[in-house]
């Protein structure tokens, strides 16, 4: 490691190995990613419920419709924010993708079960709207989990091939 670093007196050297490793841990933290995945899922489910009620309830007063519109917009904004963070700031590595995929499948499956119970208890349009949305979200979550597993397997296979090839060259 180079000796060209001269930290200011009394302050931690921002470029020391320890500082960079700490930065790496912070940037690559699984928990921060799962937090944003959870935010995305909860925002999606809440937005789904609010939008389903808004669309299916007849003869709502104007101010109630306005309130539903605002809540739907807030939910969509949180979804967009979480999506942006996961795409730009806390990008998923392969291991993260598998864990996040499993989390998404579990959450959406629970949501779907809740929607099925709601349909069973009170056969109303809002419950059916939530049910169909739950099915779509579960299908998407399963697709994302399968894709994450596939990527993880491909990278693992490539790592093993490279290790064999490098071992053979030594």
């Amino acid at each position: 490691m180079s000796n060209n670093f001269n930290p200011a007196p009394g302050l931690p050297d921002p470029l020391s190995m320890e500082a960079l490793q700490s930065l790496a841990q912070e940037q690559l933290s699984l928990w921060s990613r799962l937090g944003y995945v959870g935010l995305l899922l909860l925002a999606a489910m809440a937005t789904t419920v609010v939008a389903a009620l808004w669309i299916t309830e007849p003869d709502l007063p104007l101010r109630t419709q306005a309130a539903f519109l605002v809540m739907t917009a807030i939910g969509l904004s949180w979804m967009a924010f979480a999506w942006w963070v996961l795409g730009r700031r806390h990008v998923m590595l392969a291991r993260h993708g598998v864990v996040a995929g499993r989390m998404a499948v579990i959450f959406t499956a629970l949501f779907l079960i809740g929607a099925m119970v709601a349909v069973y208890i009170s056969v109303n349009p809002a419950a059916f709207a939530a049910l169909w949305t739950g099915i779509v979200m579960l299908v998407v979550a399963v697709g994302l989990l399968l894709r994450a597993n596939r990527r993880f397997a491909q990278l693992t296979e490539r790592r093993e091939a490279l290790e064999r090839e490098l071992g053979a060259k030594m």
Partner: protein
Amino acid sequence: MIQSDTTEARALEDELLVVRCQLGEARAFDQLIQRWHGPIWEYAQRQAGRDDAARDIVQEVWLRVFRGIAGLRDGRKLRAWLFGIARHTWMDHLRVRYALPMDHETDPDQITADQTPEDLRYEIATMRCQLARLPPIEREVLSLFYLQELSLNEVSQVLEVPMGTVKSRLFRARQLLRRELESEGVNV
């Protein structure tokens, strides 16, 4: 043959490190930092000319590396990718973009073919002392090609210019370096 084997082994090692990082192995990121922090720091310090600016650049470079490595498709291009990020970060700090005209009288393909091994050894040995005096573009291309040992193709990717431009800049940079050395009474 030996050099191409070494180059091939280096490319495989780079790719393995990238694959391990993309899998999410914490130790791989430690190795990435250990291996590349020194060269990136040297590059930033050489380009920025000041330690405080170099620190800002290097810290930003690593942030971009951690965020972007999941999307690196060809791990063999790791070093070109890293120095490309370093260069973009440096340019963002500078906020100045300029280009110099190509030297159309010189045959670009002869530029690097004319060098003897003795020429190369002498130039590398004295280069570190003289680089700071050169203009930024010439300093950068010499640093990437000789000190960071990137290939012409990799330098072309980092600088985002055609390979002919890289060769012309190398030729001009070597000419400037020679003039600097001759002005100090050093025989080259």
